[in-house]
């Protein structure tokens, strides 16, 4: 029997050429959270964020929701951004919100690559996808997964 299970689902859309919009959901046997955030693509800066705490363990936990606004202005590309996120959002707020933001952030470049590959496939259906990916990663050294 599975005694503990956690699922994360991250979706990304591109409302304009400069912005990526994430919706992240994290559900496990104990917690349930959702994050919506807009990120500027060029420098990874968080432009807007909102969080929904659906299931939690203590009456103090909802105090973590306003702490999320600390993330506005943080960059997902600066050195040590994951550590900073865990400190500012996790420790001062909720570590599960921080986990979810971090997972959204890890999808930033993968989503950009996915979008680029889709557009390339529209023009060239028999594209060598592996080679396209290798070239894209070399052309985008900031790539992180």
């Amino acid at each position, binding site marked *: *029997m*599975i*005694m*503990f*299970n*956690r*699922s*994360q*689902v*991250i*979706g*990304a*859309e*591109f*409302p304009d050429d400069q912005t990526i919009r994430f*919706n992240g959901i994290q559900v*496990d*046997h*104990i917690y349930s959270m959702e994050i919506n955030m807009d990120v500027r693509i060029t420098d990874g800066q968080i432009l807007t964020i909102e969080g929904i705490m659906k299931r939690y*363990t*203590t009456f*103090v*936990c909802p*105090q*973590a929701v306003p*702490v999320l606004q600390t993330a506005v202005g943080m960059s997902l590309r600066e050195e040590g951004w994951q550590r900073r996120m865990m400190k500012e959002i*996790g*420790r*001062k*707020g*909720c*570590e599960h919100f921080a986990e979810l933001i971090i*997972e959204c952030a*890890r*999808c930033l470049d*993968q*989503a950009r*690559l*996915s*979008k680029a*590959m*889709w557009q390339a496939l529209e023009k060239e259906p028999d594209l060598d*996808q*592996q080679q396209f*990916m*290798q070239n894209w*990663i070399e052309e985008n050294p900031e790539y*992180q*997964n």
Partner: protein
Amino acid sequence: MTIRFLRNKVVEVTSQSDGSLAVSWRLTDDLLQAEIDLTVQLPDLEIVRAEARLQRLVPRIWSAAPELIKKIEGVRVGSGLRKIVAGLLGGPQGCPVLVDAVLESANAIILYFTRPVLQVGEAMEGEEKLANLREMIKNSPRLVRSCVAFQDDSPIMQGLDL
């Protein structure tokens, strides 16, 4: 508006008949599919088996992931794990997906042990519930100041000198 990218991740902890824990970590998104399986021996939480499979569009630099993950065998889930895993599986020749998978699997093991403690507390009310939470914190010092609920000024922490 359609979404242009979707990632699904699942981590599961299963108790085995020999007393060990099996952890299954799965990731699938538009480009990558990754599966990491760990077996963790109790009581010292040693990772005794680790396997990894990366498929679909895998960056070439990660092609050694199935061999790389073996480095984690013999490591114990506990304090200092983040640094140990980063050292063994991270770096320029490493694979960040494996680092994340192992750390998230370890976190799932901790939550596997936390779940029954919280479920016992659900039947309680008021002061009794608060006392149960405080007992949990005393037994898990890593929780102290780990989030807003366990900061020094939280009502939950009142009376605790940790």
